[in-house]
Structures are given as C-alpha cells and as structure tokens.
C-alpha cells in the first residue's frame, strides 16, 4: 500500500477517536482532560487560521487574538445587555417584535450599586411578565459577524502595508482594543471581566442521559464541531484557486497582480475569513470559560498562537493544528516542578522558557516546522518517482 494513504487513514481514525473519546475515557481526571481538549481545539482553530493568514497569504498579523476577543466580547455584551420581555418596560430602549419586546439594558458599571433600567421597571411590570434571555447562539453568530466586519475593515486598511509595517499596525490595533475594553468599565466592566452563560444554560438531555449545564461534554462537542468545520473550510479553500492566489500574493504581490489576481479582493477575503474563525472560537470559548477579561488580548496569548503555528508548521494548516494540540498538552504535562539537589525548578515558568527556545531553534533550523515535514514525507511519497517517470515517457515534449 502506498504511504500516501497513511495520514488520511490516521486522520479519519483520529476524528472518530475524538468523537467517542468522552464516552470511553473514564478515569478520575476526566474533567481536567476534557478541559485540555477543549482548550486544545480552541488553540488549534486559532493557530491553523493564523497559519492560513500568515503562512499561506503572508500577512503577519498580530491582531488574531483581537478578532478572537471581538467575537467573545460581542457574545458577552449580547448576553449581558439583551433581554426578551412579554410586556414593555417603558424605561429601557426597547423594540416590539411580534408580541414580545426586545429590551436593551443600560450599562451601569461594575462598582456602582445602581440598578439598571430593567431592575427599576420590574417593580411596575404587570404580574406574570416573562423575562428571558434570548438564545446564546444568536450572540455567537453576532460575534462571528462582528469579527468578520472588523476583519474586513482591517483587511482594507492594511492593503498598502507590508511585513514589518503590517506587524506594527496590527499590534497597534490589538493594543487600542485592549485599552478601550479596559477603560470603558461602565460597559465592559474592565478588568473585572464580563460573565457569560454556559453553552446550554438549562443542561441538555440526549439519549436519555441528562447533562448539567456545567458538564464538559457540550463545550467539547461544540468546540470539536467548530474545529472540524474550520479545518474543512480551510482545506477546501486551499485546494481551490483561492489557495493558489493567496500563495501567489505571499510570494510576490506585484507579479500576482500583473498576472490578473485581484490582490485587493483576496487580501481582504483572507483577513475576513480568518477573523471570523477566530471570532467564532472566541465566542464559544468565552461561553465555556464563563468569564472574559481584557487579558485575553495580552501579547503573550498572541505569541502562544504564533509559537504553536510555527512549531507545527507555518505553511501547513493541518500541521499547525496538530502542533497546537501537542504543544498545549505538553505545556500542561510539563507543569510539574521538580528538585535538582537543593534547587527547586519551578516548571510553570521554565516550560515557557524551554518553549521559547524551541520556537527560536525551529525557526532557525526547521523553517517548515516540526510536524509539517512528517506530513510531507507521507503525502509526497512517490511524487518524485512519478515525475521522473513522466519525464522519461515524454522526453522531448515542451523542451524548446
């Protein structure tokens, strides 16, 4: 059998295993391992979409976590400030939709004991008024759209900027967003963070089993589905003209434009698509974690994503996703501190030092990452022989 088939079979096996994993894994650290998997999927989405942006299209953007935060914060603001009532409050900003009222609460800030308009209106509302939160999935969708809008905007703004200038601009964008979120305490509650509901606030009953809202099963599957969806979209895209064109952009923008690639359109498109993926991951992860703070925008988080993509293989989407998952698990496993003689080695910090060193050495000596060459070894099996055979079969053709 040709070894080209090995990664495909392994991939299918891995997906099947991931799907049945929560049911076959029964050890005591179930919750912890499930948490690791959810986080791993989250970082895998971010790293692989960043590799589409940076590795394929050559746009070294440092704003990826900013798009993620836009998704998470949109979902959180939606969940915190929008309610559906069966009677009007006559106090808040509200819109009548059918027989119901969509109420937008006024922000009251984090420290003040002031009541928002709904709290005040509750005293005068007719008895039996139903106050409900609309489905959180609309918030997730809104987050994805908002991420897309910002991706489009940034994509248009950076059209003229290359490498270093682009990196500086996107760092600036992320920092401005972080400062704005930290400063607008009245709306975003600043460093205190915004709380989000769990993905299924009332729990879920499936096949006769009831799972409570804090069970890790639902976020696991939500994240896994999102991960597989993003991978499918990206792999499909890279196989089409889109993938070819954005790689042409990376190699030489002028030449690509001269050959008829619509540079503006594809650059903006790749920004929008990757921003939407990051925003979707952020919104789901925010609902899983339950609270988001501006610290998710710290440059450290962005460097983790970059390091994952680089160590996995910047120019391969699958490799950077696998790299992200492996690195996340390794970082957790390396957490245990140990002693060398009298010196205590605090691994919670040294693992990151080690990780930084691996990042630099990978960049220096293995530009294609550590995972991508393995995949290539399988995928490109027989390609050389095939090419040689083709050349020998038609030795004179096209040799002028």
């Amino acid at each position, binding site marked *: 059998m040709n070894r080209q088939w090995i990664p495909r079979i392994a991939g299918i096996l891995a997906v099947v295993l991931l799907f049945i994993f929560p049911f076959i894994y029964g050890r005591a650290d179930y919750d912890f391992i499930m948490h690791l998997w959810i986080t791993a999927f989250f970082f895998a989405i971010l790293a692989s979409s960043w590799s589409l942006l940076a590795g394929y299209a050559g746009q070294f953007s440092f704003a990826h976590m900013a798009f993620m935060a836009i998704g998470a914060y949109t979902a959180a603001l939606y969940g915190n400030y929008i309610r559906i009532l069966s009677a009007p409050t006559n106090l808040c900003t509200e819109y009548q939709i059918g027989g119901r009222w969509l109420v937008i609460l006024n922000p009251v800030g984090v420290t003040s004991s002031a009541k928002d308009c709904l709290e005040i209106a509750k005293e005068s509302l007719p008895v039996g008024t139903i106050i409900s939160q609309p489905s959180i999935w609309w918030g997730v969708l809104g987050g994805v759209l908002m991420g897309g809008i910002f991706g489009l905007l940034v994509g248009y703004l950076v059209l003229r900027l290359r490498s270093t200038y682009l990196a500086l*601009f996107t760092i600036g964008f992320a920092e401005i967003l972080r*400062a704005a979120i930290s400063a607008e305490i009245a709306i975003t509650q600043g460093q205190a963070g915004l709380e989000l509901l769990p993905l299924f606030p009332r729990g879920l009953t499936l096949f006769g089993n009831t799972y409570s809202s804090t069970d890790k099963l639902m976020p696991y599957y939500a994240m896994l589905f999102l991960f597989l969806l993003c991978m499918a979209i990206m792999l499909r895209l890279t196989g089409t003209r889109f993938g070819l064109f954005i790689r042409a952009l990376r190699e030489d923008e002028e030449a690509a434009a001269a050959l008829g690639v619509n540079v503006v359109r594809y650059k903006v498109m790749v920004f929008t698509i990757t921003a939407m993926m990051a925003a979707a991951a952020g919104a789901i992860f925010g609902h899983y974690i339950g609270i988001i703070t501006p610290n998710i925008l710290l440059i450290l988080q962005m460097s983790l994503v970059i390091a994952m993509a680089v160590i996995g293989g910047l120019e391969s989407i699958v490799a950077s996703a696998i790299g992200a998952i492996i690195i996340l698990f390794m970082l957790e496993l390396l957490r245990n501190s140990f002693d060398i003689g009298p010196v205590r080695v605090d691994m919670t910090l040294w693992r990151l*030092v080690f990780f930084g060193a691996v990042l630099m050495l990978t960049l220096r000596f293995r530009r294609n990452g550590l995972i991508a060459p393995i995949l290539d070894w399988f995928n490109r099996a027989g390609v050389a022989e095939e090419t040689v055979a083709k050349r020998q079969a038609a030795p004179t053709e096209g040799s002028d």
Partner: protein
Amino acid sequence: MEYSSIFFLTLLWVLVWGAIGLAVTPRIYLRRDKDVSQTGLMGALIGAAFGPIGLAILWVFTPSYKTRWVLLPGIIVIFILSLAFARADPNNLCVTSGSFVASQLVNGIIIGIIYSLMALGITLIFSILGIVSFAHGEFYMVGGMIAYFMTARWFPGVNPLLAILAACVGTFLIGYVFERLFLQPMHTGEVERPGEYAILITFGLAFFLQYFVQATVGANPVKATRYFDFPIVENALFQTSKGSITFFDAVSIPNPRLTAAVVAVLMLVVLLLFLYRTWTGKALRAVSEDKQAAAVAGINTEGMNTLAFALGSMLAGLSGAMLVQVFSWLPQVGTIASSRSFVIIVLGGMGSLPGAFIGGLMVGLFEAAGTGCIPDPTRAASYIPAYGMIVLTLILLLKPTGLFGKEL
C-alpha cells in the same frame, strides 16, 4: 457639557478640514502636473490650521513643498487645540498654574530624552539590517535587571557606573550572539522571506528573554536605589536636596530622572561622534546607505550588521539601566517599552536618527500632557497606552515614512 462641546467642536473642525486637505490637495497638484509627494500631509496640516481659507490659498497657488509649509501649520494646530482646551476647561491645573505647566514640560522633555535613547537603538538596527527588533523592550528590561543586580544583590556599594557598564556589556553580548546565531542566515540568503523571518525570530527572542528573566528573578517588582546623591547647593537659580533639584522654586526634577537624562545626552553625543568621526561609524552609515556599494568599497557588511544589532541592543540596555532607578522593574516592563519605541520610530520615520530623537521628545511631552492635563484621570490612565498606538496606526495609514523617514 461645556468642556466637551467647545473642545470637541474645535477638534471636529480641525479634523474635517484636515481630512479634506489630505484628500483633495494631491489631486489638485496632480491636475496641475506638479510633484505630489508630501502634498497630502501639507494639505492636511494647512487645512487643519487655517480651515477653508488656507486650503483655498494653497489650491490657488500650489506652492512646491517646503518644510516650513508643514512645520508652521503644525505648530498652529497644536496652538489652536491647546487654546480650545484652555477655553473649555478653565479650571484645569494646566491652564491656571504656569509652574505646573513648566514642570510638566521639563519632565516631559527629560523622559523624552531617555525614550529617544532607546528608540535610537531600534532605529539604528532598522537602518542597517532593515528589520524591526521586536525584542528591543526585552533588552531594555535585561539591562535594567543587570544594573539592579549589580548594585543591589551581587556587589552592594559598587560604583553605579560599573553597574551601568555591566548592563551595556551584557546586552551588547546578548545582541551580538543572537545576531550571529539567528540573524546571520538572513543576509546570506539561507532564509526565504527574510522580513517575516526577522519578525518571528525577534519575537521568539522576546518571549524567551522575558520568561527566562521571570524564571530566574521572579515576578516581584524590584527597584534600584538612587545612583548618585546631589550635593546640597542653594542659590538664586536652583536649590538641591539629595533626591531632587528645584529651579526657581517651581520646577522640581527628581534626581534619578535628571541623571538618566544627562547620561542619555552624553551617550547621544558619543554615538553621534562615533557615527560621524570614526571609520567604523562611517562604515556603518555607508552600509545603511547602500549595502552593495559598501561591500564593494571593502566594508565587511556582515560584521556591520552584527555590530549594529549589538549596539542597538546595548542602547536599549543602557536606557534600562538608567531607568531602573526611576521605575519599579518587572520582567514585563519590556512590552510597554517596546510599544513605546515602535511609536517613536514610526513617528520619526523608520531608520532616521534625528527622527528617533525628535519622536522621543514628542512622545515624552505627549505623555506628560496626557497624564497632567486630561480631566477624568482614571479613564485617561487606562487609555494612555492607546494614545501612542492611535498615533502609530494613523501614521502608518497616512504617511508610513513618518516625519523624517526616507521616501519608500
């Protein structure tokens, strides 16, 4: 409400006419078949300063670009905005107290000089290697840490000059080794897309250094004691105490800041002498002008790359060593310092030495004004990191070459 209405209306007026000038002026110059470079900036500033009248005169006469057509309106814009600010918020300390303004100005200039020292390093690296070192803030942090450890932990009571020297040597060596090991292949063509490689590898170094220091030193803030005590002098012009100096009973400068600024100025002079008077300095400038021609003339460009990176990193380490007696020091201080130097070099023009100096002064003054004058201090404090970044993004969008940069 009084505050916002007057000030923001003025701001809106300035912005709208600036935008109109920016958008329309190059077109008019193009139609007249004149040189359009810089006319966008000129139009924007003249529009912002003189409104429709200035723009009309500019569009009728279309004078060719001169620095004074940018400088003069720029000063007038700042003047208009401060006037509007003073009218809008008459009780602000910045409006009522002259001595407060003077001390803010002096402190802004002093901190700006120290910032420019750091930005000079990053701009030196950019002008010769053509890359931005994203690890620059970490060199600054490491320099401060070395100085702190020299004076406070390893050799208490050592001459602070030795500590500063150690910080310089340490950061110089780290920069030297890093350039040799990781940046050298960029110039020999071993690496595809060197620009992106440089971003990632310096970013990796920043990550590594930050966590290395955190793992070895710990995350608690440290602060070096004052390096020098002033002698006690008292006369009509100024009076000193050990920790500060006061001019005219009004402008008080803390000792650590003043010594840091004096060392920064000395270092600037030394650097300029080195760049313009010695053979090596001339070779460095030659490489930044034209790499091939310099190589033909017998200059070892590889060596110059290494020297430039090590020197630039040393300048960051030096400013860290000077500032560790002013601010409390954490492994994370480099991040803020990095972003500040990015703002400075983009403002001044990437790779321009005078640009870095003037950009540093401007950022120092801007921060002093921002912390001293803006009402609603808690919110302003949260936004302070963003001000610089807003300037950075706007300049990148409008005029990526900055104030003094070479045209692309």
